[in-house]
Structures are given as C-alpha cells and as structure tokens.
C-alpha cells in the first residue's frame, strides 16, 4: 500500500528527492562541518552516474546511466536489489510512499517497489525524461524532452493531464499545493495549475533553461543559459531581480531562509539574499559548475570535479575531497555521513 508525501518537509533521516526535499533546502543541520575523515565504503555501479543519489528509511538509491536503479545498504555499501530499465537513466530518483520513481531515456517514468525492487507502474512520454519526478498530493509531476509537462496518478501512473510547452524540458518541476513551476528549453519559466495543467503565466529569459526552480517567500529562483539568475514573482512571473554571472547556468538554486546559492558554468558559486538579490559572496570552486549545490550545517557542498564544502557565511572553501569526480551529481548529507556518486560510476560513503 502506497503512502503519500503530505507536505514539503522531510524527516531528519531522509533525503527523498533532488536537493533533499521538495523545498530544495537540500541540507541537514546534523552534517559535520569538518572534512570527512574516512571513506567507509565504495560501491561500483559499472556505469557512469549522472544523477544524484537519494536516501530514505535507511536505504540509498542511485540510478546509473546504463539504466540500473541500485538500492544500497548504507551501513555496508552492499546491494539490496537492482532494477534494470529499458533505456539510459539521467534522472534523480524520488520517493513516493513505498515506491522509488525515476525517469528514463525510453520516455517512461518508472515506479519501483522499495522493498522488492519490482516495477509497480510506468508512465509514458514521447522522449527522454531527465528531470526528476516530483511528488505532491498523490500526484507525480515531470517534464519530458518531448516538450510536455505531465501529471500522473501516483498510485497507477495513469496520465491526468499533459501540457505542451515551447521546448525540451530538463528542468525538474517545483510543486506547490496548487501551482507548479518549471524552466524550459524555449527560455521561458512557466507556472501552471497543478490540477489542470493550465498555464498561469510564463516569463521569457534570454536563452534556454535546464536549471530547476526553487520557490521561497513567493519568489521563483532559477538560472538560465543567458547567464542570469532570476527571481520571479511566483504569482505573476514578474522579474523581481536578476543577477548576471559569467557564463550559462545549468545548476539549480538551493535555499535556506533568506540564503540562496547557485553555480554557474563560469566555475563559481554565487550566494544571494533571496529577497533583494544582493550578492553575499562569490567563490571560484572549479572550471565549470553545472550541478546544484546543497546546504547543510553551515556549509554549502558542491560536486564540481571534486567535492567542495564552503562556509555558508563567507564562501570560503573549508574542505575539499578528490572523490566524487562529477559535475552533474549532488552529495547526500545524512547525519554524519556524506554519500557521493561519481561520473566514473563509484558511490562513496564518507564519515
């Protein structure tokens, strides 16, 4: 029997979707500020990993590019089960009750039983699904490269509605109670009604978007390939502020209170005051940043070639690890452990 994510908060022991929870706060206060001392285990997926792990009820879930969803015991680093999809996977999994959800290059979103590793249902689109499925009120929302946003029944996978936008969708939808937000390859940020899919507003940026939005205090934060970070009024899409970085933005914002941080392909992380857009700090961490950062325990973590932790107040790099050599994954911070996926296909547990 499936249960439903009832709200935007998460329990302290879970990390059920991209950037931790649907609010994209992406962090746990318990995470250690210090550099991890030990690599506890290493798990080989035998394929690159270009999505982020998630954690729920004592199990780590990782999708590798070769189409395999891995359920891993975080204590031992051993496999609990594997499920093989029909295509490559670039989508970060999400949790819905006892189901693990992920998108696939075969155009489907799969729901897999968390205990058995067996398929519960699948939902169809017409092109690859790289975005992460998002859960809200028993519904699953996702965007597809076919240019449509979909809402499907979380119990059956049956399509409730689909809405055609103007370009490919690689951005992960942000779901509020009644309203959804997403970026699109046509350069627009869209908001639509969660029940019907009707477009409520759209705001054009100067180039395509594959960044995923976060919504805080009625502001939609998102990056664009036009080099700008945008803060849009969630009610009507009006631009409240925007900030120019040095190159395009594929990274997504992580937010905590009035603090937001996002990466740019210019290799820097940018931290802002959410309400004003005032830059708090900018720090060069690598040649390129495309992954979303996460916030936890006073630090901002980012995978950008290696793994970096920056002091949240100053932006100063406080530790770095050579492990996690990927620029598309996101570290998972749970209690005193950090879980990293790498482009070369290794999963690491650090303490």
């Amino acid at each position, binding site marked *: 029997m499936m249960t439903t994510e009832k709200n935007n908060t998460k329990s302290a022991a879970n990390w059920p979707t991209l950037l931790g929870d649907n609010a994209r706060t992406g962090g746990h206060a318990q995470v250690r500020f210090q550099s991890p001392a030990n690599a506890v285990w290493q798990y080989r997926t035998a394929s690159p990993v270009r999505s982020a792990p998630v954690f729920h009820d004592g199990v780590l879930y990782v999708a590798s590019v070769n189409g395999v969803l891995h359920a891993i015991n975080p204590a031992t680093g051993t496999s609990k089960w594997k499920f093989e999809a029909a295509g490559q996977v670039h989508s970060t999994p999400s949790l819905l009750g006892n189901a693990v959800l992920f998108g696939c290059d075969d155009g489907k979103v799969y729901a897999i039983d968390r205990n058995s590793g067996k398929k519960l249902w699948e939902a169809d689109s017409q*092109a690859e699904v790289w975005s992460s499925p998002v859960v809200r009120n028993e519904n699953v929302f996702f965007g597809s490269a076919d240019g449509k946003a979909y809402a499907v029944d979380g119990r059956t996978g049956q399509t409730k509605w689909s809405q055609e936008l103007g370009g490919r969708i*690689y951005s992960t939808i942000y779901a509020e109670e009644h309203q959804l937000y997403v970026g699109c390859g046509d350069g627009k940020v869209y908001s639509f009604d969660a029940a019907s899919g009707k477009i409520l507003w759209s705001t054009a940026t100067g180039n395509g978007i594959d960044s995923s939005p976060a919504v805080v205090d009625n502001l939609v934060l998102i990056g664009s390939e036009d080099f700008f970070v945008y803060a849009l009024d969630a009610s009507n899409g009006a631009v409240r502020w925007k900030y120019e970085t040095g190159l395009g933005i594929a990274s997504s914002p992580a937010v905590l209170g009035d603090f937001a941080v996002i990466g740019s392909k210019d290799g820097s992380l940018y931290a802002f005051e959410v309400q004003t857009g005032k830059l708090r700090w900018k720090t060069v961490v690598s040649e*390129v940043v495309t992954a979303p950062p996460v916030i936890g325990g006073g630090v901002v973590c980012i995978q950008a070639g290696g793994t970096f932790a920056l002091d949240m107040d100053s932006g100063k790099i406080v530790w770095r690890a050579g492990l996690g050599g990927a620029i598309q994954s996101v570290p998972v911070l749970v209690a005193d452990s950090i879980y990293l996926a790498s482009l*070369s296909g290794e999963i690491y547990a650090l303490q």
Partner: protein
Amino acid sequence: MDRRTFVKVGCIGSASVVVQGLDPMVRAEAVAPVLPPIDLHDLPDYKSSPLGMPGLFPGRVIEARDRNAIVSNRVSQPIVRRLLEQAMKELTGESSTRDAWAKFIAPTDVVGIKINPSGAPACCSSPEIIREIIAAVQSLGVPARNIIVYDRYSYEIDIGSYQALLPTGVRIVGIQDAFSGGGVGYEPTVYCDANFFGEWETRSYMASIVAHEVTKIINVPTMKDHSAAGITGALKNLAYGTFNNVARTHRAPHSFTNPVIGLMCTVEPLRSKAVLHVMDGMRQVWHGGPLTQVQNFIDQTGILLVATDPVAMDTIELETIEKKRRERGVPSLWQHDLESVTPDSRIFFHDASKNLFFRQPGHVTAAGKLGLGISDLKRIDHRLLSS
C-alpha cells in the same frame, strides 16, 4: 591498390614533408618516432558519393563575419542566421537559402550534425548555430526525428546543455560515456589499425551512427588550436570524433595526428557522408585548446566559415590562429622546441609559450595529399563577407 600499401605511401610522403619542408625549427631530438604501418578498413561494398570530401566546391571557403555576432560571450541568434544564409548562398551561387541547402540535403536524408563540445562551456559549437542548421534542414522537409546531433562523449554534450537548448524531436546522441567501454556504439568492421607506441589495443573503430544511421553529415567544428594536432578544425572534428581510441596517437612530446587525422577522414563512409562544414569562429582559441576554459586565450571574433572542402577550411583556420599567435608574441604552432614542451598541464593551460606536444599542423597539408581538399593558399578561393 591495397589499402595498406596506399596508406604507407601516403604516410611516408607526409612525414617527409614535415621533416624537410614545413617544420624548419625542428631539432634533432625532436624528430618523431618512425610512423608504423596503418591499415584502414572501409565499410565493405560502400559506394562513394560525389558529395564526399572535398565535395562540390573544392578550394572554396566563405568567411562571413560580424563583430556583433558575439557580445560578452553571448551569440546573437538573428545575426548568426543572417551570416549562415549569406555564406550558404555565396558558397553555392544560389539566390535562395533553401536552394543552397538543397545542394547537399534531400528530404529523405538522415542528417548527422557533428558538433564539437569538447571545450564546453568556454568554447564549443554554439547552440545558436546548431539551431539555424536544424531549421535549414527542416525547411527542406527532413523531419526532426531524422536529425541527429552527435559527438563522441555524452558528458561533454551535457556540459554544453545542448539537450535543453535544441528543438524538440531532434535526437542528441553521445556515442560513449567517458568511463564506459569504448566498444559499444562502434562498428567492428570499419577501423584504423596501427601500433603507434606499443599500445595493447591497436584499433580505432568508426562510430556505428556514422557507418549506418546517418546518410549525410554536416560538420560544425570550432576554431581552436590543439596541443597535439596544432589546430582542431573540420578534419580533426570529423576524424577524432568519429573513431574511438584516438588519444593513443599521442605520447608526449610526440603525436601521430599527422597523418592519422587525414587518413581517418578518407575511410568510407565518413568521407562520402561529410558533405558540408560550418566552422564556428564566434570564438577563437589561440592557446590551450581543445579544452581550455581560460578566457584570456579566447577571442570573441564573430566569424563563420562555410565550405565543402575541409582542407581548405582548416588551412584558413591555421593561418588565422598563426596570425593571432604572432600578434600575441607566442611561439608558432610549427615550432618544435623541447624547451617549450612541458609535461605539466597546469603550466600549459596558463602559459601560451608552453605546450604538451610537438604540434602537428602539417596534418592539414597531409590530408590535402590524400585528396581530401586543397591546402595551397594560392589555390584557395577565400571569399570574405563583412557586415
């Protein structure tokens, strides 16, 4: 003629050119190791096309430029559209853009667009140019599903965000992941076989997508220097983006990119299918290529080159980058000097007087000797279109 014998003759010829003629600064210790025999295996029974390299207009290179085509690293979609339309009409002599494209592409074609994302995000094939090429191909009646934008490494395509930026329906394919096995996605009967430095795998296979799926290729290289090949242009984008296991042709400070780049371009069906080359010179990398992210070595010039002859195109590119390096007071791409070679890539990436290899820009002339085009500047019909 036996393909292997032919290749050996070609290689000896090109190697002697490097040593005797084009490379006066070479020192005794810089002489390259002996070139091994190279076997080339075409797709069996493949019938060559008259559109194949050097194509319909040997020696003709159209250069369209507009300084406003790129401003603050942003490429202008409408200016790129105009430049490409002008260049295509000038190349073909047609009065309409549609007729110009129809010289190369038929509605029944499956069109591969070979991008170069390897320097993304700082310098890669601009999505704005790719969008215009896709629009032009679609205007001829080619459905989106029959257009395949591809390159060798999928993770480099991701960094360029091509997936999000290109129209729906178009397929975007990375032939392999950087860390996965190189055999998947490659045709086992079409290959280049040579043992350069004692490597255990001596074959480089052609991508299946080139061997079997696409019927035409539009090549979209960037304008960059290359630490081993001297430049990376139309020839190298095709050769080293189509065959796997190519890094083995370099072992610092030596490189066999000359003549391997040209040889690979002669292998069918690559030679026949590559019918048009659109060089993205919005940005010019004059040091640190192909991967540099150092903006100090990247000029924003707003240039677009169009040709069917990759050798003529690369000859113009080579001249352009050489001129730029002279202006900046850094060594010629032709210089072979052990003191300018460093094994430390961090030094190379930030010091334009240093390099990782003895560069091999002679690969362009060698490709001309293989019949792929014209490398003699006096015989190249280089037409400038300025705004």
